[in-house]
């Protein structure tokens, strides 16, 4: 059976490992350390951990100040609050001065589940992607999450890392290599291309298997860096296959689908079908049932691929 690990758990572990080798790493949280898993770092390095209380604006502002003094702060909260409540602080105190702040937000997307629409960030990629100097990462599993965290710490500048609450299948092994700005082709295919990010990568791979049974050869690309987007891998897919389907646990407005469509429209026009939430809020329920209900299902990817 496939191993299931939440990306937030991988984040906590990665932070602790990073803390051991780099004493510039400091971590900030806004009263959610048990949920975001920054508590793992806190236990190991209590004096390098700062709880700011339920105050997300101050969370980001304090991280910015720490960064000016040479620290590498990782600031965490739920994605809705980290990117929404604190948006303008991220813009003016972090991105504009290009400070070395990492915002690792958990509980992104519908797979938050039972907490419902108020807590399900479906626009965070869109708003973070629009900020100059911001790098946007959305790892697909625990293995990739760990690499994202290490690469984010190596990179100088603001990084937004989108993580989830739910346990998700581990799809990569130790040989997998993540690089900022590089999409990774996970499956060869000549008929259609599925470009997915985050939790949808696993679903894209499953959809490709089903399509193969029908005689449709689907290429699958993991786009874990949404900004800067890997233009080359998109252009290649646009030229070599009939069309592109994008799949993300995020609104179809402004996220991965938009980023891919922008590249395609400019460099190599072809048909792009975006799978994501259709300009709507989520609701309470089991996270994976919600993915299916809102069209983020294996079946929907298969159906859309048939249309290409």
């Amino acid at each position: 059976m496939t191993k299931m690990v939440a990306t937030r758990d991988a984040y906590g572990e990665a932070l602790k490992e990073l803390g051991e080798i780099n004493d510039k790493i400091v971590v900030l949280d806004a009263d959610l350390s048990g949920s975001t898993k920054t508590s793992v770092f806190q236990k190991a390095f209590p004096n390098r951990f700062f709880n700011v209380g339920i105050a997300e604006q101050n969370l980001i502002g304090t991280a910015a100040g720490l960064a000016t003094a040479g620290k590498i702060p990782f600031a965490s909260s739920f994605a809705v609050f980290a990117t929404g409540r604190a948006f303008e602080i991220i813009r003016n105190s972090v991105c504009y001065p290009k400070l070395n702040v990492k915002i690792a937000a958990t509980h992104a997307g519908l797979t938050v589940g039972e907490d419902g629409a108020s807590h399900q960030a479906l626009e965070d990629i869109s708003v973070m992607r629009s900020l100059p100097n911001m790098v946007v990462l959305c790892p697909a599993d625990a293995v990739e999450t760990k690499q994202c965290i290490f690469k984010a710490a190596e990179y100088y500048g603001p990084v937004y890392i989108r993580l989830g609450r739910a346990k998700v299948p581990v799809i990569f092994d130790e040989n997998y290599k993540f690089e900022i700005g590089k999409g990774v082709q996970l499956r060869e295919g000549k008929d259609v291309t599925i470009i997915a990010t985050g939790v949808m990568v696993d679903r894209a791979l499953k959809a490709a298997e089903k399509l193969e049974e029908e005689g449709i050869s689907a290429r699958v690309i993991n786009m874990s860096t949404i900004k800067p987007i890997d233009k080359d891998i998109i252009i290649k897919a646009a030229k070599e296959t009939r069309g592109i389907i994008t799949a993300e646990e995020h609104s179809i407005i402004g996220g991965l689908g938009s980023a891919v469509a922008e590249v395609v429209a400019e460099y190599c026009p072809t048909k792009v079908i975006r799978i994501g939430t259709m300009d709507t809020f989520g609701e309470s329920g089991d996270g994976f049932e919600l993915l299916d209900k809102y069209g983020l299902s294996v079946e929907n990817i298969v159906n859309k691929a048939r249309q290409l």
Partner: protein
Amino acid sequence: MDKMELEKIAKKIRINIIKMLEKSQSGHPGGSLSAVEILTALYFKEMRIDPNNPKWEDRDRFVLSKGHGTPVLYATLAERGFFPKEELNSFRKINSILQGHPDMKNIPGVDMTTGSLGQGLSAANGMALAGKLDNKDYRVYVLIGDGESQEGMIWEAAMLAAHYKLDNLTAFLDHNGLQIDGKTQDVMNIEPIDEKFKAFGWHVIKINGHSFDEIFSAIDEAKRTKGKPTMIIANTVKGKGVSFMENQASWHGKAPSHEEAAKAIAELGGELDD
């Protein structure tokens, strides 16, 4: 440096503020003129800084949380030798390093990018936390506007500074009583501001913000105060030193005409085209 010399410098800075604004025909005179003594005291006597090494790790830091006060910050930095005074002529103009609001990336001596109100105190907290973590003895100063303290984020940051016992942090509140739309007490009353900061766990000192003696005595008291941050509530006059700008909300964000600038500088004992 004695008080007479500091007063001479303060006068030069006031004159340069007016000159900059007359050239740029854009910017904020009122809240710049109200903070001249505070910045002069910090940059010419108090702070451990090196204009030749603006990013020196062990330097004292200053955050202009009320970022629209760039005229006083830039005029002070130029006077102190962080960059040539000629740069002041390019304030707010295209291709200038001197952006309308502080830009730490491009302006030597600017320790934090600000401009959107309410954010500077949090950044100053981060600097103070880093200093504590690294056992460094640098001090962090931040200037907040009284109107600015209407921002909720100021109070998030006020809580944090007291919670983490940031006694290496000293804040000044430029208490000039005016904001864009009028008197702070009419727009959104912040009083009693001293009691509010006390209730948030700060050591609070009230001074005349135009008196060097009172500024230095408050800074000394702040340095002696252990286990909590200090808020120096500096009672000031918006537009201080220029009769027709004093206590006028209308001079918050308006540049003087050539004639007005000439008059202002004459009052300050200088000449516009000097």
